[in-house]
């Protein structure tokens, strides 16, 4: 027995030392480096946004968000024909010209000089000048010709002392009207038109680009209606009685008009199912939905699926 014990002990010590030497270090499981995948969290509302557009057009994914570039000045002249051109085209009308030239004439006298030599001999005799100047104050917008006459006058040197007080009197009268006129007419020229040159996309006629009906809001509406819905449980094949209803709502969340059934079914109980669904819609109104997204829920299509209610 002692020999056996010694043999056993020796064998154990041998095996343990062999294990310590041979298996002294555990191989580490080094996994090959894996490239991390970038994951974006996308809000559901992005998928449920209504896009502005018309229903007849094809869908264009890229919304025409950017305003069209201000066309080069040569272009507006070619586009005069459409009704929009009042805004689009900065082409000067007679009225505008009076507005723009008049202040220039009143402040520095030498500035208008270069164009003047031409009109001077043609239009303006010097005797008429005083009359025109008398008319100038009240009738700024009446005509081109008197104004041009005014512009010519500064050249005659004997009269400057007389004229200088006059513009001072005129300025308070001018400013409120003229500045408003200036502002109105310079703005559209700079910002271009609202009419986009891009094609309209598929969307709701009343849609806005920022209307978002989120999934949770849809679920809220669904749960409000599901509360009042008693599906025809007893009918044969009741679980297959899916009713698809379209109805519209007013801004206060009340149902307007009668819901329209969008599908059909051979099941004799289908009418009952339609009735129950319609009843549910009317019973639970008015619905509390976000008023600022009325465009999104004005017309709603709902699936009444008994399977979800019966727990199939």
């Amino acid at each position, binding site marked *: 027995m002692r020999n*056996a014990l010694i043999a056993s002990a020796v064998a154990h010590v041998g095996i343990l030392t062999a294990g310590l030497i041979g298996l002294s270090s555990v191989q580490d499981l080094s996994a090959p480096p894996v490239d991390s995948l970038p994951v974006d969290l996308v809000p559901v509302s992005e998928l449920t946004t209504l896009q502005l557009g018309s229903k007849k057009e094809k869908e264009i994914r890229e919304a025409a968000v950017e305003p069209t570039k201000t066309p080069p000045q040569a272009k507006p002249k070619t586009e005069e024909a459409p009704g929009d051109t009042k805004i689009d085209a900065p082409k000067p009308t007679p009225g505008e010209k009076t507005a723009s030239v008049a202040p220039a004439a009143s402040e520095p006298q030498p500035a208008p000089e270069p164009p003047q030599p031409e009109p001077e001999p043609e239009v303006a005799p010097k005797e008429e000048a005083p009359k025109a100047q008398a008319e100038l104050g009240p009738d700024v917008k009446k005509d081109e010709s008197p104004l041009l006459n005014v512009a010519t006058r500064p050249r005659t040197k004997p009269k400057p002392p007389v004229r200088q007080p006059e513009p001072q009197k005129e300025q308070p009268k001018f400013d409120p009207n003229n500045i408003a006129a200036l502002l109105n007419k310079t703005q559209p020229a700079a910002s271009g038109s609202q009419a986009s040159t891009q094609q309209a996309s598929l969307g709701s006629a009343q849609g806005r680009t920022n209307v978002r009906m989120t999934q949770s809001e849809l679920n809220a509406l669904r749960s409000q209606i599901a509360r009042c819905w008693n599906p025809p449980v007893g009918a044969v094949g009741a679980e297959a009685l899916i009713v698809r209803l379209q109805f519209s709502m007013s801004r206060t969340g009340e149902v307007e008009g009668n819901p329209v059934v969008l599908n059909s079914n051979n099941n004799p109980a289908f009418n009952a199912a339609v009735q129950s669904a319609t009843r549910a819609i009317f019973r639970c109104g008015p619905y509390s939905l976000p008023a600022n997204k009325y465009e999104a829920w004005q017309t709603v299509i709902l699936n009444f699926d008994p399977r979800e209610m019966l727990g199939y």
Partner: protein
Amino acid sequence: MAQTEAVSQVTLAGPESLSYFSMFMDADVVVKLVMIGLILASVWSWAIIIDKVTLFARTKRQMDRFENVFWSGQSLEELYKSLSSRANNGMAALFIAAMKEWKRSHEGDRPAIASLQQRIDRVMDLTIARETERLEKRLMFLATVGSAAPFIGLFGTVWGIMNSFASIAASKNTSLAVVAPGIAEALFATGLGLVAAIPAVIAYNKLTSDSGKLTARMEGFADEFSAILSRRIDERV
């Protein structure tokens, strides 16, 4: 404080220092004791296995030799004289015990032959029981190790895992690096338990059946020898 301690422990038990020896040294005291006990149990059970295997082989060899001599036609008196001088076991011990009883019954003036047959049977039964006890001695330890060592190892594992979860709670860090060393140590205990238990179970089954065979062989010889002696007794009466 607790956090820094936990951090230092984690850095100490990094993967580079995770050898079997360091795994043993880092283990909790209870787990260490369990491991040591299991190693000792393994040593002892292997000692028993080696001892029993050699004993059974030797016993079997002796039985073969004795049977050859016994059935060779040699006279029983001579065989008794040659064997009685030395210590015997197995069949030889049976033979010696029976012959001793025979001789003692025929000594003196009044030989006690009337119930000699029963006495010889009883003596041989006793010898068989003694021999069987000698053969099967310590085999029960193998059975005990085989059934209990996995549980002991499991105890060490449970204790080690308890400690590693306690270290999670202390460091408030659920990363695997905090738990892994403790769990590796703990599983080492179960491994040792299995290392001790598996050979013990296999050897126990093998040795039990071997000793059963040897015992059956001795019983067969005892019956045969009893028949021979019974015939002799009846011839004398």
